[in-house]
């Protein structure tokens, strides 16, 4: 129900530049995930959208209306804080009712009760309604905080790592719940996380931030398959993408670390001429073991349950290779490997931007 535009937003806290020239457009009813490491500016972005912080420069628009200087309570955003922030002197029920009882948005008590009961059922906190927050576990507090946002019908949900303190099972359920909430309410979601799995599963689009700079915005697939730069490539995906030094020369791509020469025309589809030195990235699942002509040595096998990660030593380089869980490899074994040619990504070694 709301379209949010940040235009060239800058924010500084003392010596720390939290956001630099942030420009971001979020479509009406979209689930946008802000992904990035600590200090990337994710929370600051949420706080600026909510009105808890004013940008030093730049503009914030909600539904085309400039929001700079508009008080948080007039923006109709719900905020789920990372550290829950429940009102300690009120029961869970009253905490949930708090935004509905505000003088500016007075709702009838019967209606409040109905909404709270519904939300409590969804969040499985019905038995906690009469308790005080300090009698709740971290996960329960987090669900109450989520509930306080859900009982309202805000235009925008701002969520700062709202699932971080839930156990894995509940987290998965909550993901589903959040997605259906988005569908039912049609509200716009800003969802902060540093967990790329969460980002991939929840986001209609993912915005990757680092050190206050927006690195890339795109669908989860775009961000995963075509990372805009080395940072995004490394940050998204687990285990990390493999990076190798490459030297294109005379129709060949020489991968020095692997002592390998590939036909350039098979791996490089771009039109532009590659610089004399490039960074070549390849995801662990795009290296195939048991095929190809060159051989590496198995250095370590990590069993992840669903699949395995093999650390393959080639010369001085350790490659991460994802293999199916049925595959059996023993340490020290010599195995042939193959890089899937079409999946190689090229990055400029100086600007770290993706080429092509």
């Amino acid at each position, binding site marked *: 129900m709301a379209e949010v535009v940040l235009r060239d937003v800058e924010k500084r806290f003392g010596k720390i530049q939290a956001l630099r020239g942030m420009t971001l457009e979020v479509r009406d009813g979209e689930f946008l995930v802000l992904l990035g490491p600590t200090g990337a500016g994710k929370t600051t972005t949420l706080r600026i959208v909510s009105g808890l912080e004013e940008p030093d420069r730049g503009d914030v628009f909600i539904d085309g209306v400039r929001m700079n200087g508009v008080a948080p*309570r007039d923006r109709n955003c719900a905020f789920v*804080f990372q550290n829950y*922030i429940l009102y*300690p002197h009120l029961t869970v029920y009253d905490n949930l009712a708090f935004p509905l009882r505000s003088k500016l948005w007075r709702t009838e008590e019967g209606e409040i009760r109905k909404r709270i009961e519904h939300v409590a059922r969804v969040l499985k906190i019905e038995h906690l309604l009469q308790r005080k927050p300090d009698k709740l576990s971290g996960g329960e507090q987090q669900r109450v905080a989520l509930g306080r946002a859900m009982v309202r019908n805000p235009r925008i949900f701002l969520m700062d790592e709202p699932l971080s303190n839930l156990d894995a099972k509940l987290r998965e359920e909550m993901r589903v719940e959040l997605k259906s909430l988005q569908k039912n309410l049609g509200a716009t979601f800003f969802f902060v996380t540093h967990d790329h799995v969460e980002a991939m599963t929840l986001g209609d689009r993912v915005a990757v931030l680092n050190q206050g700079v927006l690195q890339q915005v795109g669908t989860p697939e775009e961000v995963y398959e075509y990372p805009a730069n080395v940072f995004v490539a490394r940050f998204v995906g687990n285990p990390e993408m493999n990076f190798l030094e490459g030297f294109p020369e005379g129709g060949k791509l020489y991968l020095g670390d692997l002592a390998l020469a590939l036909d350039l025309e098979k791996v490089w589809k771009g039109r532009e001429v590659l610089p004399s030195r490039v960074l070549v990235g390849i995801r662990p699942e795009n290296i195939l073991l048991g095929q190809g002509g060159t051989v590496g040595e198995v250095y370590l096998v990590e069993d992840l349950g669903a699949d395995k990660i093999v650390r393959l030593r080639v010369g001085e380089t350790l490659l991460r290779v994802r293999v199916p869980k049925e595959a059996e490899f023993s340490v020290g074994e010599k195995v042939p490997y193959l890089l899937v040619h079409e999946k190689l990504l090229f990055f400029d070694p100086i600007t770290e931007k993706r080429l092509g």
Partner: protein
Amino acid sequence: MSDIRNTWANRVSDRGMLYLFLLPTFGFLLFLVIFPLIWSLYLSFCEYSANAARPPVFIGIANYSSLFREKEVWDRFVTTGKFVFLAVAIEFFLGFGIAMLLNREFYGKGLLTTLFILPMMFSPAVIGKFFRFMMDTNWGILNYILGRLFGMPKIAWTTSYEYALYSLVIADVWIWTPFIVLLSLAGLSSVPKYLYEAADVDRASGWFKFRYITLPYVAPILILAVLFRTMDAFRFFDVVYVLTEGGPGYATQIVPFYIYKLAFSFWRTGRSCALAYVLLIIIIALSNIYITYLNRLRRA
């Protein structure tokens, strides 16, 4: 080796050392607090005059029963009640209000806070003298300012029946408002800022935030502040002694001052002891009301 074992220090055990250190304090406590307390309790049941050569004569509860029969005593209590209520109420609202104003970041906050606390650092006797000068009917600065600013007629602050008690209240407010300010500030700064942020996003009005966030946090410490002030106001003596001496007539003779008069002007030691105990019981009873309320808040 034997001379080490025989030194005095080595013959005292750790526990013995502990008691040795405690002994002086305990002695002081015994002679200056506990003994007078018990002795005065005994005297309150006796006919006794400290300046007479007669020993105390036990007369049972006669002192107490005669106290309650006398209208004069009741009047003193009414005066005291008025004084305590007015002083504590004004201090509370003024103090909490000032604390609310000070509870934000601004230039010179530290200096201003220090200035506000200054009155508590003066000796009460000195303050009594100050106010005596300032409130003088003819050449006091208070009447001068009121006259200049508002064209008010001269008021006989400390010497008229109507105003004398108020002048005591004003002096007490001047001294002790900072105390409430300090405690309130401590309470206010204990409220986590992020709760206000959450409330802002939750569309709460200013009153809503005050009622459901600020107040629950500061209420316990405010009750403590009022408790301390009430207890202390019941013992208000030094400023009365300097400023009005209980006058004019009996207009400002609050109970502590009356006890002093009984004891050292009329030398009715037994009777004054009895009255002191009555006052003590009242203070304990009042404190208990506060503490009960405080505990209820804590549990909630």
